[in-house]
């Protein structure tokens, strides 16, 4: 492989392609670009693991039952805030089936949310474990608490934390987000995002709009709850099965907690039932699961399974913080924005991370004056954590709906207002494409007719934009590809498939390079002994892993080329590959024959991915990575008699770099749209403000969209971009695809009604209130 060389790449999108020169690091294959003719990459391929999943043969962490494994259960605080006066776990110890009991708090300790760890047991059966928990005696002295964001901001509100708060960040957080600019009472200020002078811009404005927008707490609600199974293989060695988005984060935390070397902890995640940002590390954000399972297993001398139930999953495993965003927009007479000012407060419970993302700051960048000020408000609730595009869906909702309200005052079409201020050429292209494909102009006219007639059933059309960065990580992944004497091909890496389909994509990359059928590539992952890899957060997996896999496959191919040259009695540079055969002049050797000539067991090579070296055509937030673009259109139907909103159609137009597998990529976008629809229409954590507990820790009154609630049609369009970022051209899609959905739906509801519903979710009570038909209390 040649050392560091300069190559010319054809990059860009649609009609806007151009050649750029890129300096490649040593050993790096020439990136696939707009000129590359690929046979497997970019073609739809069903998931390789699909038969295992649909037949139930796939083993998730919940399915792992080592011999003699015990069942663990955790006693959780029923109080939002209380001091533990006494705790006696002894009565649990002698109960039938109980092997280990653990107090997790000491007398005098203060617990600060309902659901916090108090004690844990391990027993033979779940029923015995529950009985043991009931036998544990705890005396609490309840203290004043606050679970409501607005109330927690008041002077004199009960303090959640009595000292400076340590931020907890994971691979699920957006790179560059976070940090603190001070803390007062329950309010902790995040660093501002600032450009120009927003206050001045507002004073200069001829037309302005000002309103407050709120969003709710959203829980991750992965189908598979947080779960960990621990088996000690010796006093200083453990095997851990964990439902995680980052097996190395589990390994490292577990090793740290029990003072082991990372190499003495082996972590498995063969299959994962969703994570959405809440599954990093051996513990859940609000429960020390790794310690609990590990310590119970050590005390009991037997493997322990700790699988949370749905209630625990809602209470202590993270959530998307709520938000209360005060938005001020100013515009000149022709609609040019003079200022965007957002002041956001939100609660991540006892945790941090309630910022509202980069939407207001990064998308409509032709506005010269922007100020986004975010604050975490501490409340006595379970900690928030990264959730699919942290901050962005909330930020998109407030900004985009405010823009539509401003556009109405300016008598401007919402798309025109956006095009006037968005500098990203791909996103501009997406707006124009969607305008035609969605039937925007005609639809908006029809919506206006129904609105003017005061029709019972209205229609509305809305649009919103997405912003994310290509955070693909360099030097993080080491992939191994091997070709054995029997011709079999294997790729290994310690990554986990969160469900996006990386297993299949990895096989496609190897198949492309080695010209083998995709099904012939055996993919081994989900094991920390298979080589370093990244966590599945920040939409980095495909962009981080596939270039390393390709580098390894190319290195193996180089060795096979040398072997073929030897067999064909030619020089390696004379050997070409086609149809899986090595050829030189008139001679060729078939794959199986060539592999038989391998000396030893196999040809093996590893590959890594260099740092990102291209970001065409637009950089994200002034960094060195590409800014991922996306635009979504929504059409809604609103019944003004009942307030029910139905989402008829969503058109999701996204840029995902070079699409590896259109089938799995489309599926991710559909998932993002469905998650966003559910967030827009119904999902909401409900806390009792008087008693401080969550009232809907289930999937009955915590309402996740079902088959009849998802859009009748979800059309996914990719606008492929060659960014030159890495050797496969892959960038992320998981997070960008959920950012604008709720915003587009809210904008469509505004179009339908002529008034904005400024609070998510868009439930009938809010719609009827916006229509002005709900009597104030006692007035009926």
């Amino acid at each position, binding site marked *: 492989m040649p050392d560091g060389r300069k190559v010319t790449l054809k990059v860009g999108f649609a009609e806007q392609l151009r050649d750029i020169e890129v300096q490649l690091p040593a050993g790096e294959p020439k990136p696939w670009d707009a000129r590359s003719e690929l046979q497997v990459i970019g073609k739809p391929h069903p998931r390789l693991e699909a038969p295992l999943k649909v037949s139930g043969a796939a083993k998730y962490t919940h399915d792992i039952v080592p011999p003699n494994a015990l069942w663990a259960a955790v006693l959780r605080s029923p109080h939002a805030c209380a001091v533990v006066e006494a705790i006696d776990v002894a009565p649990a110890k002698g109960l039938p089936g109980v092997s280990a009991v653990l107090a997790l708090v000491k007398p005098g300790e203060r617990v600060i949310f309902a659901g916090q760890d108090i004690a844990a047991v391990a027993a033979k059966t779940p029923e015995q474990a529950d009985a043991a928990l009931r036998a544990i005696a705890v005396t609490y002295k309840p203290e004043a608490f606050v679970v409501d964001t607005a109330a927690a901001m008041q002077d004199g509100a009960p303090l959640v934390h009595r000292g400076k708060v340590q931020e907890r960040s994971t691979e699920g957080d957006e790179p560059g987000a976070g940090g603190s600019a001070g803390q007062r009472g329950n309010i902790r200020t995040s660093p501002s995002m600032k450009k120009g002078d927003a206050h001045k811009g507002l004073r200069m404005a001829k037309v302005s709009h000002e309103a407050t927008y709120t969003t709710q707490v959203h829980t991750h609600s992965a189908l598979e709850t947080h779960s960990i199974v621990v088996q000690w293989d010796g006093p200083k060695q453990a095997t851990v099965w964990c439902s995680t988005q980052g097996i190395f984060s589990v390994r490292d935390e577990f090793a740290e907690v029990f003072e082991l070397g990372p190499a003495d902890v082996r972590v498995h995640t063969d299959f994962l039932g969703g994570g959405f940002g809440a599954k990093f590390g051996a513990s859940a954000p609000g429960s020390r699961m790794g310690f609990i399972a590990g310590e119970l297993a050590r005390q009991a001398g037997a493997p322990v399974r700790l699988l949370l139930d749905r209630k625990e999953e809602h209470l202590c495993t993270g959530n998307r913080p709520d938000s209360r965003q005060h938005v001020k927009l100013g515009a000149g007479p022709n609609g040019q924005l003079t200022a965007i000012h957002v002041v956001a407060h939100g609660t991540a419970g006892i945790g941090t991370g309630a910022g509202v993302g980069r939407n207001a700051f990064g998308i409509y960048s032709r506005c010269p004056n922007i100020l986004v000020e975010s604050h975490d408000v501490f409340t006595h609730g379970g900690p928030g954590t990264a959730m699919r595009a942290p901050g962005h869906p909330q930020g998109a909702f407030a900004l985009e709906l405010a823009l539509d309200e401003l556009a109405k005052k300016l008598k401007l079409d919402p798309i025109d207002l956006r095009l006037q201020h968005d500098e990203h050429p791909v996103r501009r292209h997406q707006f124009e494409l969607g305008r035609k494909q969605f039937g925007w102009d005609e639809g908006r006219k029809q919506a206006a007719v129904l609105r003017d007639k005061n029709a019972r059933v209205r229609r509305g059309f809305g649009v919103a934009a997405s912003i994310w960065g290509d955070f693909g990580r360099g030097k993080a992944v080491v992939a191994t590809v091997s070709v054995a004497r029997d011709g079999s091909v294997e790729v290994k890496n310690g990554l986990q498939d969160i469900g996006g389909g990386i297993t299949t994509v990895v096989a496609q990359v190897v198949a492309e390079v080695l010209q083998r059928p995709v099904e012939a590539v055996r993919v081994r992952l989900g094991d920390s002994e298979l080589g370093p890899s990244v966590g599945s957060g920040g939409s980095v997996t495909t962009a981080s892993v596939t270039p390393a896999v390709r580098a390894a496959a190319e290195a193996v191919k180089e060795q096979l080329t040398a072997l073929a040259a030897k067999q064909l009695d030619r020089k390696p540079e004379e050997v070409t590959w086609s149809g899986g055969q090595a050829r030189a002049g008139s001679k060729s050797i078939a794959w199986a024959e060539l592999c038989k000539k391998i000396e030893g067991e196999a040809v093996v090579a590893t590959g890594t991915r260099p740092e990102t070296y291209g970001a065409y055509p637009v950089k994200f937030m002034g960094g060195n990575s590409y800014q991922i673009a996306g635009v979504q259109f929504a059409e809604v139907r609103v019944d003004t008699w*009942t*307030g029910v909103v139905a989402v008829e159609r969503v058109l999701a137009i996204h840029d995902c770099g070079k699409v590896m597998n259109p089938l799995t990529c489309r599926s991710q976008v559909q998932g993002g749209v469905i998650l966003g629809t559910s967030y827009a229409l119904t999902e909401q954590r409900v806390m009792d403000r008087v008693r401080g507990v969550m*009232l809907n820790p289930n999937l009955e*009154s915590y309402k996740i969209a*079902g088959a009849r609630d998802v859009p009748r049609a979800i059309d996914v369009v990719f606008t492929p971009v060659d960014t030159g970022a890495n050797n496969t051209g892959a960038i992320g899609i998981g997070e960008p695809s959920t950012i604008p959905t709720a915003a587009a739906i809210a904008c469509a509801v505004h179009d339908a009604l002529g008034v904005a519903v400024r609070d998510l979710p868009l439930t009938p009570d809010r719609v*009827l209130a916006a229509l002005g038909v*709900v009597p104030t209390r006692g007035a009926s």
Partner: protein
Amino acid sequence: MQPFVLSRPKTLAEAGDLARAQPQDSALRAGGIDLIDRMKEGLEAPARLIELRWLGESEAVMRALGPDGEGLQIGALVTLAQLAGHEGLGEAYAALRQAAGSAATPTIRNAATLGGNLLQRPRCWYFRHADLVCLKKGGSACLAVSGENKYHAILGGGPSFIVHPSTLACALTALDAQVVIRGTEARTLPIAELFVTPKQDAKREHALQPGEVLVRAILPKPGAEQRSGYAAVKEKQSHDWPLAEAAVKMSLQSGVMTDVRVVLGHVAPIPWRSREAEAALEGKPASEALFAEAAKAALAEARPLRDNAYKIPLAQGLLREVLHRVAGVPLPE
């Protein structure tokens, strides 16, 4: 869940004896949809479950679904799925068919029974919360009053503000159904008398005594040109509880409505028959304006809590819609 004894009697007499032997500590199980949930949530821990699904041929009435004289009988073990697909429930009884088809999910409808649906416990999140002691669980106050009451009652509330959870109850009340109950002796009640208001007894929702079994419901012979309909408004269209329901029955001859029944669900602790709306409609020609007036009358006495005043316009809109559909008056665009 705590261990329990499972009994599978062949006769209702045996079932009744078992229940009376442990009046506080046994539970009758039909579909088991709600009961097993309550046991899993730790709300109840009966020592004995008495399964009704194993009753023998002698109790065939429990599974009957068909004509009863000139009316229709529905055994307590008939499933919601059977009702939703039953041809005998024509235009006159359409409200019941529509209600059965609207509840829960296909999976649940295949197991849930008429009896279980009528006698299930409320879905109030305070009642269902294992750590909270509400009025229904022996506490001193209905926690919804000071708490989060978006889904609670706007009519007939106090001292408890639950809404009655049964979807079939709303339709059966509109259809003037009767229920047959067998204990040590049999009795037949108008369905309205099956339900207990919180003012009568805040701890219960139905009038059955321990050992009594609801055997069947009877729909009377339909009136001339009788028609009926049911609809619900839900936040979520798949698997959700209604925010409000409306069931309407009427005889419609030459455009004039008589023998009108209007019942609202999920707005009150019992299926809420609105005599005000019925009076507004009775004997009058069907029209859009009249429906709006009747809907207003139906909610005139509503007394919302902090978060549920929206149910007033919502229930009005829903009732108007059902009236339009039942009377065949086209809905405005």
